[in-house]
């Protein structure tokens, strides 16, 4: 009995160390926040269109599995993910919709001319209110919306090739994206 008691600190230490090891090895960044809107209907929005195109609203997304990408020309990580969004749109044939967060249309145009335009349609969110409704806390953020208009997944930060393979494509396939 006594001897078992002496082992207790060692056991507690091992439990704690094991917990830390799990948390460290999972590769999860604790500063990335879970979305409050997972499995909830996407917030309604109606934004002005870009460059003479018609505006973007939630109804345009309905009936398909789509990605909604919040981006800005002033956002450096957005530049890094743009080629991957191009790949999603061109090779995987996923409809990607862009919401230009707090950006001037002229700057957005320059950004897209330079890096390519993967977006089926773009909405201009110059006030940032639509972003707040989605719970965006920093661009880029990408939302996966299913056919019924529910948010199924949110990706914070620039999409990497690894994240695309491991997190986005399986979910897209599961939801039956074309």
């Amino acid at each position: 009995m006594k001897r078992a008691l002496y082992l207790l600190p060692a056991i507690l230490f091992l439990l704690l160390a094991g917990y830390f090891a799990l948390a460290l090895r999972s590769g999860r960044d604790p500063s990335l926040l879970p979305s409050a809107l997972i499995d909830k209907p996407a917030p309604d929005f109606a934004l002005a269109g870009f460059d003479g195109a018609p505006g973007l609203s939630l109804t345009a997304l309905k009936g398909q599995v789509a990605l909604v990408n919040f981006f800005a020309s002033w956002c450096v990580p957005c530049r890094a993910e743009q080629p991957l969004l191009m790949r999603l749109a061109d090779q995987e044939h996923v409809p990607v919709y862009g919401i230009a967060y707090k950006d001037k249309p002229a700057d957005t145009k320059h950004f897209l001319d330079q890096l390519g335009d993967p977006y089926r349609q773009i909405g201009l969110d110059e006030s940032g209110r639509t972003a707040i409704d989605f719970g965006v806390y920093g661009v880029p953020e990408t939302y996966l919306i299913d056919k019924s208009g529910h948010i199924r997944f949110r990706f914070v930060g620039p999409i990497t090739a690894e994240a695309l393979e491991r997190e986005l494509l399986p979910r897209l396939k599961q939801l039956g994206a074309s």
Partner: protein
Amino acid sequence: MKRFGLLLLMLMALGGVAHAVEPAERLADPALEARARAIGSELRCLVCQNESIEDSNADLAHDLRVLLRQRIAAGDSDQQAIDFIVQRYGQFVLLKPRLEPATYALWFGPPAVLVLAMIAIALNLRRRRDQAEARPAPLDDAERQRLAKLLSEES
């Protein structure tokens, strides 16, 4: 040097009251503004994650302050205004987590550990006291004779 010290003191005093709230953001009605400020200081800025939106200079904190004031001015109760933000950003925005089953461990864990530790210490102290109080049984005849013999050998 003295002047520098005074300047430093003044700057430090300024630091105490400085909020990130800009004059243009404030509501005209001081009562509403006070309510907005009280709510805002309980809401986490999601960009810096360790400051309230009242204290943060982040762009998003500014937007949320303005939005919060719009809601308050439009007649939202404190709870409604808080819920409006929580719906969008989740419970993580609350600097003080709500008391509900998911947060019981958070709220009651530390007091529970304290109580357990106090019980353990009390038990331990009692055991020690009992040990100290326990006197050995008086010597029986055989022992007394052996003791007397040992003592006589010594001398």
